[in-house]
């Protein structure tokens, strides 16, 4: 029973990884692509780590799997924020559907 649930979680993790990559290919611009890559990717890796930690159930494996997942959860938003900020400052073009607050231009050239 537990094994079945953990197997399904493992499959869900793989599916979320696939969805993340699909989003990175199909989304219209950098800023939108970063949503797919960081959110769905982190969720996929997290589900896979949790499922394998439950399946192996040895203290060394469980601790390391938790450390991997915690580290990804901490670093993925930081990396995405740095990258989005750098892309915005480098004038990477927006998708045509993006509306922009004019005041945000102050951020691009700080005095």
């Amino acid at each position, binding site marked *: 029973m537990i094994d079945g649930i953990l197997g399904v979680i493992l499959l869900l993790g*793989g599916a979320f990884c696939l969805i993340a990559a699909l989003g990175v290919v199909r989304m219209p611009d950098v800023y939108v692509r970063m949503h797919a890559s960081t959110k769905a990717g982190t969720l996929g890796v997290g589900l896979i780590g949790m499922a394998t930690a439950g399946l192996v159930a040895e203290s060394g494996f469980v601790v390391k799997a938790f450390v991997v997942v915690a580290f*990804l959860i901490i670093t993925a938003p930081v990396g995405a924020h740095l*990258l989005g900020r750098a892309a915005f400052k480098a004038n990477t073009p927006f998708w045509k559907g993006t509306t922009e607050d004019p005041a945000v231009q102050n951020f691009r050239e700080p005095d």
Partner: protein
Amino acid sequence: MRVFLQSPEGFLGWCANVSALMIFLALMLAVVRLIRGPSLPDRVVALDLISMLLVAFLVIFAYASGVYAYLDAGLALALVGFLGTVAFARLIDHNGDTGESS
């Protein structure tokens, strides 16, 4: 349809194989974006996703093969992948988008 030479029997082995197969497909899609991506940040996003997917694959592989040392490799890859993303972000921040627009 087997990705691993050695994997657990039954439903769990099937789950591990299918999950690894989906990660392979995701890696191919990420490489498509890495090659096509019109700007440098696009390629960096694809690289970030690739390192994340490789961590996921290493975790599954450590479980399926029973060689738990691969989990350490996944941990190290997670650390280095983050540093790579930060370094690229700093590069774009300082030099602007130097990738050619194709």
